[in-house]
């Protein structure tokens, strides 16, 4: 059943509508799957299509309610705009919104009110166009205790527990977690593209989550990936010091040794180059996708092999 969660009149002959599709069978729990907060992140589009398609075909296995919100920022998705078009505003800095507020605040508030009370909410983000990411779930430290066990059910490669930053208090995930709706933030792939394999990986994760929550009767017939769980201290950041055009010399998702050349920043005018080296040994889980870099541009993130905390 398709319902409108929030709507707001635009200037000329059109309404902005945030919609969801509800799949229901039996009286079990409810989970919500949301994506499309950032209009340039599309990996979630394929993933939620797969989930919807799979549930429709196997509705008898479902015991409970699955709400799918494919586009929290429909205007952004329809116009390749990360934020809300015309507002220069990152929607993920407006939650929990305000029912008496502006258009963005009203819409964000209605979304939070609608998702509230779900057993779990899965918020699917892709990376931006600059970086490629291995499938991961990001959890702020203060919610780690309740969320890490859920994240482990999601068939992802790793879980990053990070310090909570004040500025992140306006995200959908923080807003929901602070009112007791457990919310997992998934990051994967790259902006403006769809990697089908990642969609299937996430489908399996969500079906497994349903099974573990007692909302799916059939035991999944695949092996669920056991993610590496790590803390901030275990993540090494590689930023470019040079400016120019980055080309990588290693494979994304591979293991690198400290000091290895990950790639080079080229100067096509002088035909010179600057090597970019790994700051620690470990798994290359983030890698630069968009070639043009300035000093400071993030080139890679490495999950250190040494146990740190």
């Amino acid at each position, binding site marked *: 059943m398709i319902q409108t969660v929030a709507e*707001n*009149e*635009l*200037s*000329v*002959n059109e309404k902005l509508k945030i919609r969801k599709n509800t799949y229901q069978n039996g009286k079990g729990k409810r989970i919500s799957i949301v994506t499309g907060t950032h209009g340039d992140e599309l990996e979630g589009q394929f993933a939620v299509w797969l989930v919807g398609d799979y549930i429709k075909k196997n509705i008898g296995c479902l015991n409970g309610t699955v709400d799918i919100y494919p586009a929290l920022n429909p205007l952004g998705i329809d116009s390749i705009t*990360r934020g809300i078009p015309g507002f*220069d*505003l990152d929607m993920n*800095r407006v939650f929990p919104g305000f029912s*008496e*507020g*502006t*258009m963005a605040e*009203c819409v964000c508030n209605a979304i939070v009110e609608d998702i509230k009370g779900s057993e779990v909410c899965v918020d699917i983000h892709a990376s*931006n166009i*600059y970086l490629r990411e291995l499938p991961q779930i990001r959890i702020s430290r203060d919610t780690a205790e309740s969320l890490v066990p859920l994240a482990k059910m999601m068939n992802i490669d790793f879980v990053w527990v990070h310090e909570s930053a*004040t*500025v*992140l*208090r*306006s995200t959908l995930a923080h807003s929901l977690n602070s009112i007791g709706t457990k919310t997992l933030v998934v990051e994967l792939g790259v902006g403006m593209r769809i990697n089908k394999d990642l969609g299937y990986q996430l489908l399996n994760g969500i079906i497994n989550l349903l099974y573990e929550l007692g909302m799916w009767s059939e035991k999944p017939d695949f092996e669920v990936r056991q993610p590496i769980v790590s803390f901030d201290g275990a993540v090494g*950041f590689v*930023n470019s010091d*040079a*400016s*120019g*055009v980055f080309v990588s010399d290693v494979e994304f998702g591979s293991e690198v040794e400290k000091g290895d050349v990950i790639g080079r920043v080229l*100067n096509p*005018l002088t035909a010179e180059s600057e090597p970019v080296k790994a700051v620690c040994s470990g798994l290359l889980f983030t890698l630069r996708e968009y070639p*043009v*870099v*300035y*000093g*400071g*541009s*993030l080139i890679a993130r490495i999950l250190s092999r040494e146990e740190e905390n």
Partner: protein
Amino acid sequence: MKKQIIYSLKSPYRENLDVIGFTFGSGEKSACIVGSTRGNEVQQMYICSQVVHALKKLERQGEITEGRSIMVVPCINYYSMNIGKRFWTMDNTDINRMFPGYEFGETTQRIADGVFRQVQGFKFGIQLASFYQSGDFLPHVKMMKTEFSQPEKMLEFGLPYALTRKPRPYDTTTLNYNWQIWETQAFSVYSYGTETVDEKASQVSVDAILRFLSAEGIVRANVKPGYVSRIIEENTMQQVHTEHGGIFKTLVKIGDTVYEGQVLGEVYNPLDGEKICEVKADKCGTVFFIYNKPLIMQNSVAYKIVDF
């Protein structure tokens, strides 16, 4: 006057981004004035250029107090200004959401870090800020309410209104907020206009800044007396929203006194010209803000009214 490059960044193909700072006087770091951090803040840069102009003259006349120094940074992100973008050229991030910055971080974190090192440690910080909502408003000065802030100091600007703002999560990465955290009394001065240069409005801001610097004994400038301002908490202002989207027409002007229930503006159907709704004041007061575009959405802030 000393002109210096306070921060420099290399780009793949453009000339370096050299952020320029002008220093007047010497000794105690008394005041720092920062202009545009975004590519569309032309008016904010222009106001700073006029402050530089005025301070040059005062310095020549020996009217900068002995042992006091002032730094002016008119424009941080002129890379974006030169190509007609508001945010950072490459990744569209906002430098004014990156403070205090991070030396080893992303490009705009590095710019914020490099600039912040130079603009911190002053007794007073003044930022020429632009409004995130599109509209006209009365000139005012604003201060973030922290444990450290002294809102009474805002009165020295002599602008019609002085606002205090309770910081929201997304305010914590602005220059203004971080100045306060590092114990600089920080003010944001809001002038009419952003993408256009408005001479009259610019003069109002320049006068206000010189008035403040004079009141603090940092310069001796001859400025005409300002307003007796009042301190108002920003969130006590009445916000008037539109009930429908369409073509917006205002019936009142900025600074007008309005009464309870007065029709302030109207929204028309953009296709057939029928009036869809009226926008009314909930209580009496002075019109502080008016939305200034012809097209308006439902639930937009059309007016802000301040209690006289």
